[in-house]
């Protein structure tokens, strides 16, 4: 007992406690989220809507207005649909930390249940894109057609290797690496920030499924040629050659012309 109390005063004890706490939280979170996945497909209940309204009033109404009808600092959310909410809140873009050129991805502020309730509330305000059909997110579509669609509709902003790219005045199209199929689908459906809307009439649900399949294929298989240097094209290749390539060569030339002891 004495030994334990001594160890408790050890400076590392606090660290150990913290780590244990974090692990436990993570574990509980993992269990909770996997439990939530199961009910994602069901429609929204009335209690979802009312819970969502409470969350909305507390967290979103400052910018979007009490009835989500919009204000000077935030657009109206009537008719944006559940998909938009799930994307914006689910990727942490909303609530925004501060006004800027565009809302950026950050750790989510709400758990899946709360996101769902918010989506239920906003969906109840007016018809809009609903959450995507899970069958369209399975990544079992036609990768070739998806690649073709991706290059025509997406690559100019997100880069051919989905590594992201610049827009005007500080805005940018983010990298698509690690973005879930559901969020990609919702982004196409709703056109968040400055992204154009790719409605089902423009790119059919099957087309969206193909695009997701293509993205998952290239992400999973990686580059056949080795490390991809960020997928940014000739600039990163040139930089690599000037810094690393010439650097190694210069190291060799110095060794080669130095005097042996």
């Amino acid at each position: 007992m004495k030994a334990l109390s001594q160890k408790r005063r050890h400076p590392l004890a606090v660290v150990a406690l913290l780590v244990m706490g974090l692990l436990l939280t993570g574990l509980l979170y993992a269990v909770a989220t996997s439990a939530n996945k199961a009910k994602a497909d069901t429609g929204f209940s009335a209690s979802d809507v009312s819970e969502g309204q409470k969350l909305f009033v507390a967290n979103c109404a400052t910018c979007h207005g009490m009835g989500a009808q919009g204000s000077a600092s935030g657009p109206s959310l009537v008719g944006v649909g559940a998909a938009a909410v799930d994307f914006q809140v689910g990727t942490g873009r909303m609530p925004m930390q501060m006004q800027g050129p565009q809302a950026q991805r950050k750790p989510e502020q709400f758990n899946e249940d709360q996101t769902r309730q918010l989506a239920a509330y906003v969906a109840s305000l007016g018809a809009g894109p609903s959450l995507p059909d899970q069958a369209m997110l399975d990544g079992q579509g036609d990768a070739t057609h998806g690649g073709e669609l991706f290059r025509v509709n997406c690559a100019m902003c997100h880069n051919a290797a989905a590594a992201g790219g610049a827009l005007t005045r500080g805005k940018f199209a983010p990298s698509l690496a690690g973005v879930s199929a559901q969020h990609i689908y919702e982004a196409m459906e709703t056109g968040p920030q400055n992204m154009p809307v790719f409605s089902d009439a423009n790119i059919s649900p099957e087309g969206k499924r193909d695009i997701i399949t293509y993205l998952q294929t290239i992400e999973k298989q990686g580059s056949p040629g080795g490390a991809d240097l960020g997928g940014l094209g000739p600039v990163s290749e040139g930089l690599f050659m000037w810094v690393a390539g010439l650097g190694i060569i210069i190291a060799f030339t110095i060794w080669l012309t130095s005097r042996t002891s």
Partner: protein
Amino acid sequence: MSDTTTAYQAPTKVGRIAEYVDQRTGLSTVTREFGRKVFPDHWSFMFGEVALYSFIILLLSGTFLTFFFNPSMAETTYDGAYIPMRGMDMSVAYQSSLHISFEVRGGLFMRQLHHWAALLFVAAMSVHMLRVFFTGAFRKPREMNWVIGGVLLIMGMAAGFTGYSLPDDLLSGNGLRIIDGVIMAIPVIGTWISMFLFGGEFPGDAIIGRLYVLHILLIPAMILGLVALHLIFVVVHKHTQYPGPGRNDRNVVGYPLGPVYAAKAGGFFFIVFGVLAAIAAAFTINPIWNYGPYDPSPVSAGTQPDWYIGWVDGALRLMPGVLGDINGYRQHFEFVLFGQTLSLNILLPALVPAGIVFTVLFIYPWVERWITKDDREHHVLDRPRNAPTRTAIGMAGFTFYCVMWAAASSDLIATHFHVSLNDVTYWLRALFFVGPIIAFVVTKRIALGLQRKDREIALHGRETGRIVRLPHGEFIEVHAPLDEYKRYRLVAFDSPGVLPAQPNGKGVVDRKERRRAKLSKWYFEDRVAPVSVAELEAAHGHGHHEAIEAAPTSAGH
């Protein structure tokens, strides 16, 4: 031809083989000339070799690629190994590039080796030229070889660009589209040249085949010829050397070709090959499977050329096309004169910066020679600090290049440093004009500062960090004197002064001469003279302390 009894008999087996060859070729004179030829040894002298070796690797890997590449623009449907492309329509050229990448054993390795070697080829040539410029190696008698080097750099860029376009992928196709746009902007004949080059409208079905012929036949042949000429001149002039004890303009100090230099140079080829192979093994270059086949509709964010074309692309990006509304009219750089369209917003950035860079590069040796009236042969190099104005001009030019270079990646600078794309462009537009001036001033000051530091060390020796207290209470730092070899390195350099205007043959100082004198003043007004024997004696005659006080006043500012 040894029909007399006194003929030379080789004592060894190697000697007898050599004798056999010599009797039929007369190569012994070559061996006598080259066998023990002396080459100075310094790491900065190796970049020309790096370029040469990269070129050899390019020839080897390129030959492999030609066995499988098909430069046809006919349409075909892909059914190869890369699943996300199956069933797609594409040109035969693109399809055969995918075939090389995915189905030919070692094909992807060869493609990556070839492309990485191309990047290194031009990079090594550029660094080599920078070294030659900053050390003054272009001076008489090497001016012609400097020009040959400049032409080789341009040919290297041409080789690179034609090769970059061959796979007929989306990235290079958009690059060709840009070239076509620039060509169309040429007054009077632009449209016609474009139609001629592409065999009709862009993209047509001829361009890949034509670029292929240029890339594998014409350009490499010209590079080979120029390289041969370049190397002949190196042999004729013998290599330059850095200043130092025992080295002067009448000798060349270094290792004999056989065996040491040959072994090092030969071994170095394998090292360059090995480094490139390691890079090609581990790092993707030009992932054409991501870009997809060329199609005029799509485009990828971050569409850039390979690095050596980047500065021209950057210049295109920097040019504003519209100046805004002035007096209610939109002021822009496209003019319609008598029904003809003149696109200065394209012509100016495409031609002017490249024109400036290459004109200055090609005529610089003669300009400097005119200003200094220096008609001596120079085989001992300048340390960059000992030619402050030249070094500053070089850095100004390099900065000019780098601003355009950075502009070619303005979008990536914006996304990776989280700044606005437009702001990056505005800043670079300002730096385009101001950057070279700042670089000139700063470099010149740094060079003069380093010269003063050299003087300090030559006069007072190195600071040892040991602090000694003198009997009367004063603290001084002990300086360790230099040995004569180290000192000679610091004091033996040419320090040209201002050369005032001189009357010509008729005894008249003409306008051109006065202009030259003005430039000479600008070049050499600020100078730090090398330490003389008398100054060193003075420094040693007095105590250390006094010597520091009596800082050289003869060195003007």
